[in-house]
């Protein structure tokens, strides 16, 4: 009997390791021949630990399984969810980047290949560097780290740069609250990221890569390090990638707990062993990046999407989506929701459908008050904005951003002044210190919001001024975008700031 018990951090955080151990011991007592596979998560976090049992009809799911359920599970007496692939949450998605996540054994390269892995890399090996770049450009893939910059265009700049050494740097700093797509794929399908980085290397003629992985993800670090060792031993990495005669190797580097190091130039400084201070641009990292050499810096999901683009063709990918937001986006649903997890779908789904239908509303059962989209620098979207389709330009048009595509849902008990205060406090804690409006302004922001809380109505205008100064005078989006959550909360929920609604309009 083959049983799947996820090793994903979220599953572990909900007791998956105890469940796996109990299955092993109970099976032994019963003399059952059980093979336990530690897969990634399917992304249905509310069902974790989600245990799957292989049957001739397919994989049958049980969840959320408690240690106490294990005897019934092994006796076939536990109520099942039915076939996992037939669950609404799974059927509603278009899984391209996450096609294998939760399905395969993350550290089995043969399992990976049996499910389409390495097909993209093999195709890329048969192409010229420029053709690979073209393919990525045609797919319409845009950076999933937040800024949405076209990946193919970035790669083209690096390909065109002449240097004795170029680098691929994967940004796995994933600091935004409400996001976990990077973590999920690194733990659940690490070879996809490795394959994406190798393809990027071939495309821009870079032979060395680094994954800058945040220290808050010890499980992902372990899985990625093991996956790199396996890939190297199998010749996917090394001096002669899959016998192509071309070289690419990579290393996992661990961050040190600084949110700002997710900003690409700060990240490069950190990788070089310096303080993670943001660098002025230009020069672009594409031309002068790691150690001054041309460097591709891409988010985990951007890179992990490249294999499927090469495997299925750029056109196939570009057919999904909306306007200039092409392809699919792994949306992470978090906070106060009934069904939290990762949902990969074509761009274009209205925010309200995601919140009310996919997420099933709040866990508390109370009305939704606001959704913060795109992490701590993203705007709070009130229900009036729920018809906004999920796309880069569409959210920008509403004074928001999709960022790394995390949704954090709040019910009506949320204190939006408190959330605005937190945004400023976070900025103050994490500021790299280079610009005064960010370093000092954020501290003033906290004080000003406290004054508003004490009933000082005049401080509202002060807060607005301060936000303008931060927007205009900050070098990067930490100082520059912190005003988004602050002002969006103020505009949509003036009563939380002791103001009457009309006064804010």
């Amino acid at each position, binding site marked *: 009997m083959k049983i799947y018990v996820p090793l994903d951090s979220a599953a572990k955080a909900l007791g998956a390791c105890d469940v796996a151990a109990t299955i092993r011991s109970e099976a032994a007592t019963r003399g059952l021949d059980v093979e336990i596979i530690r897969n990634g998560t399917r992304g249905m976090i509310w069902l974790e630990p989600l245990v799957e049992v292989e049957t001739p009809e397919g994989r049958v799911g049980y969840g959320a399984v408690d240690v106490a359920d294990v005897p019934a599970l092994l006796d076939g007496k536990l109520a099942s969810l039915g076939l996992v692939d037939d669950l609404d949450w799974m059927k509603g998605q278009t899984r391209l980047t996450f096609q294998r996540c939760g399905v395969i054994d993350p550290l089995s390269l043969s399992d990976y290949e049996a499910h389409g892995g390495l097909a993209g890399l093999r195709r890329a090996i048969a192409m010229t560097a420029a053709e690979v770049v073209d393919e990525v450009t045609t797919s319409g893939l845009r950076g999933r780290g937040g800024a949405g910059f076209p990946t193919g265009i970035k790669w083209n700049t690096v390909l065109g740069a002449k240097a004795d050494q170029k680098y691929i740097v994967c940004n796995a700093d994933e600091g935004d609250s409400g*996001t976990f797509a990077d973590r999920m794929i690194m733990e659940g399908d690490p070879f996809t990221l490795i394959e994406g980085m190798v393809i990027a290397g071939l495309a821009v003629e870079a032979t060395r890569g680094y994954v800058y992985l945040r220290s808050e993800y010890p499980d992902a670090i372990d899985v990625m390090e093991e996956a790199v060792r396996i890939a190297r031993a199998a010749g996917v990495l090394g001096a002669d990638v899959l016998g192509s005669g071309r070289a690419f190797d990579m290393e996992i580097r661990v961050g040190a*707990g600084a*949110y700002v190091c997710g900003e690409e130039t700060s990240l490069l400084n950190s*990788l070089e062993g310096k303080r993670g201070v943001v660098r002025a641009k230009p020069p672009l990292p594409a031309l002068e990046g790691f150690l001054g050499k041309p460097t591709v810096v891409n988010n985990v999901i951007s890179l992990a999407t490249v294999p499927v683009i090469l495997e299925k063709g750029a056109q196939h990918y570009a057919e999904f989506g909306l306007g200039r937001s092409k392809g699919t986006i792994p949306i992470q649903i*978090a906070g106060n929701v009934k069904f939290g997890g990762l949902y990969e779908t074509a761009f274009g789904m209205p925010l309200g459908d995601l919140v009310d239908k996919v997420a099933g509303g709040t866990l508390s059962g109370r009305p939704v008050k606001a959704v913060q989209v795109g992490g701590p620098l993203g705007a709070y979207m009130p229900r009036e904005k729920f018809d906004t389709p999920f796309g880069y330009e569409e959210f920008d048009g509403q004074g928001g951003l999709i960022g790394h595509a995390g949704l954090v849902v709040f*019910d009506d008990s949320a204190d939006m002044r408190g959330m605005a205060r937190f945004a400023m406090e976070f900025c103050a804690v994490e500021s790299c210190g280079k610009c005064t409006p960010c370093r000092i302004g954020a501290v003033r922001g906290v004080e000003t919001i406290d004054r508003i809380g004490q009933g000082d109505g005049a401080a509202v205008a002060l807060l607005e001024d301060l936000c303008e100064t931060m927007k205009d005078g900050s070098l990067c989006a930490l100082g520059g975008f912190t005003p988004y959550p602050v002002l969006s909360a103020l505009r949509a929920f003036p009563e939380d700031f002791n103001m009457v609604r009309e006064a804010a309009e």
Partner: protein
Amino acid sequence: MADTQTTQTMQHILARHKGQEGPLLPILHSVQAEFGFIPGDVVQIIADDLNITRAEVHGVITFYHDFRDAPAGKHIVKICRAEACQAVGGNAISERAFEKLGVGWHGTTTNGAVTLEPVYCLGLCACGPAAMVDNKVVGRVDADKLDRLLQEAGA
């Protein structure tokens, strides 16, 4: 001056990182894994090895939240303060931890068992409030679960 034992340990650590590009963060992580913190007297050794100034090494150590200049308690309990966890009652969990431990953020209990640290997201945002004890992740932390964790940690 570092004692012989420290100097020897440092030689091993530095040897392990020879040839790495940008080795300072990996070195500091190794030092902290070995000693539990970054002892003041290793700064000079690292600076000499990398041919940079003491001030540069010191500047890097102080920039990052992870590196500590004094030993922590026996266990490090991190509680997520970020938005998704706040949306499901994370603040109350932090408050309870302050109360139970009698310390604030970055504080260590008087018996030396637990150091309490804030963390801004553990990627467990769909099963918050989230916490981490040493390297072990915990989701859906409520008052009971927190009490149990703290008790197990010896607080």
